């Protein structure tokens, strides 16, 4: 068959497909009548492309058909199934299960954070001069001033709270993301960053606890939101370390595939860690620094937060 005859025969099909592609690009809910025979039309299009290639028709024609086939393929197979409850399912079932599955890495991350924090904290508690080994004196001074200053007693006001909220979101969540991405280099940066955060926390906590004036201000401020913030940080470190570990020990997959498989698996965890850090930012900005809340209430809310975190990761998603 000559090319011209072939084009004349298939012209109707091609323009029909063009219309469908245009419709679906412009309006997501195209009228059902035009969508219905789409798979059949697509198969006929594929057949016409195969014929055109096999018969050596001109490149203009085959390129045109090739592009149409590619567009149709994306349209047909790329349409995602609507899964409205995925995120909820991920957060309530997949996420806690994943955390329990990765308990070894979680232990390692907790050791890096709490172990280093406790060790350095005890050192500073008994030998306070060691604090200067980790921080410059002006830095320690300014931290101490912060918890001594009257703003701890009168609060920052709503505007100040909002500013700090923005700061916590931008700063802390970005740190989470960096910890996760840094993990790909063998997991060491993620672990180091966790240990460094633990060290920071340990020194500051021990230093401020020595002084009864700052002790109360510090612990009542920190205790509630740290439940979410530290958990978020540890979990993003765990997901980063898992990526790094898949490079070190890929098992029976190639390194590329191991990395890909690990990242797909850890994605719910990084989403969960991000959510936890966002929740922490809310608490840190609008609750922790609120001077009108009695200290005892803060401690009891903190107890509720910490125990609900522990209970959630211990029991959520076990049935279902």
């Amino acid at each position, binding site marked *: 068959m000559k*090319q011209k005859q072939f084009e004349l025969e298939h012209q109707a099909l091609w323009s029909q497909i063009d219309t469908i592609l245009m419709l679906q690009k412009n309006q997501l809910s195209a009228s059902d009548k035009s969508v219905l025979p789409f798979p059949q039309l697509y198969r006929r299009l594929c057949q016409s492309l195969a014929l055109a290639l096999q018969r050596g028709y001109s490149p*203009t024609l085959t390129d045109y058909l090739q592009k149409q086939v590619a567009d149709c393929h994306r349209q047909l197979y790329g349409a995602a199934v609507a899964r409205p409850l995925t995120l909820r399912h991920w957060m309530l079932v997949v996420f806690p299960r994943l955390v329990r599955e990765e308990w070894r890495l979680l232990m390692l991350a907790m050791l890096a954070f709490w172990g280093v924090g406790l060790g350095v904290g005890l050192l500073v508690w008994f030998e306070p001069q060691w604090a200067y080994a980790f921080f410059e004196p002006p830095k320690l001074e300014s931290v101490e001033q912060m918890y001594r200053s009257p703003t701890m007693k009168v609060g920052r006001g709503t505007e100040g709270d909002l500013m700090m909220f923005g700061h916590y979101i931008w700063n802390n*969540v970005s740190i989470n993301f960096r910890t996760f*991405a840094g993990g790909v280099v063998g997991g060491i940066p993620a672990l180091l960053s966790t240990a460094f955060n633990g060290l920071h926390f340990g020194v500051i906590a021990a230093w401020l606890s020595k002084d009864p004036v700052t002790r109360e201000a510090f612990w009542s401020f920190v205790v509630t939101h740290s439940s979410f913030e530290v958990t978020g940080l540890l979990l993003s470190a765990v997901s980063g370390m898992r990526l790094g570990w898949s490079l070190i020990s890929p098992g029976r997959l190639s390194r590329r595939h191991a990395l890909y498989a690990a990242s797909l698996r850890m994605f719910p965890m990084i989403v969960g860690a991000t959510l936890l850090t966002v929740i922490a930012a809310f608490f840190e900005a609008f609750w922790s620094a609120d001077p009108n809340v009695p200290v005892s209430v803060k401690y009891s809310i903190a107890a509720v937060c910490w125990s609900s975190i522990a209970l959630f990761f211990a029991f959520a998603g076990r049935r279902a």
Partner: protein
Amino acid sequence: MITGRLSLTTPEGVRLLLTPAGPVPRAWAWALDLLVWLGFIGVCAMTLGWSKAGKGIYLVLLFVSYWGYPIVCEVYFGGSTLGKRAAGIMVVRVDGLPVGWRESCLRNLMLVADFLPFLYTTGLLCMLSDVQFRRLGDIVAGTQVVYRDVLTVKPLLNVDAIDDEFGRIESQPLPYPLSPVQQRSLIDLVERESSLPPERVLELATIAQPLTGQTGEKSLRRVRAYVAGLIQ
């Protein structure tokens, strides 16, 4: 034939051809996106002012635009941020399908790792060592960046137009049968005539001497006649 294209076979038995985009167009796209983002951030900073509340909202916007802009663009606008659109490239999954939330988030979070130690060195090295020009984030997320097909010419336009200054060309049968690939290259020459310099066309037509038995202008006229015979 070496074309620099990847081919994926679909369930229908046809092949999808994808052209991976290299570091240079991607760097341009990145630079343009950076400019867009800086512009947006600048406008935000100016409108919100430096009050405490304004600063808070500004930082939240900074966060959302910095991490969210590429993700939202890739998921909702055909795999392209503004910069990628301008550079004519798009992000697809390795199987050629559009990216979803998971792929897009992962590849954009991994930008941090690709940046190390400075200015995307890891990403560049990774791209250069991968057949599909994938950076670390692309490997982690199972995506790749390919050129958008730009094609506006529809067939049925060139078919009637085979004529020259002496009027319509009478079709001639081929002296001996040609394979489909050979036929295709003849048709290709005639279709591309208008976009090539005349001397080059004559030079190419001379290569067909074993077929036409002529050189230069005469050979070209004969090729046109054969092509007219092939397609009409």
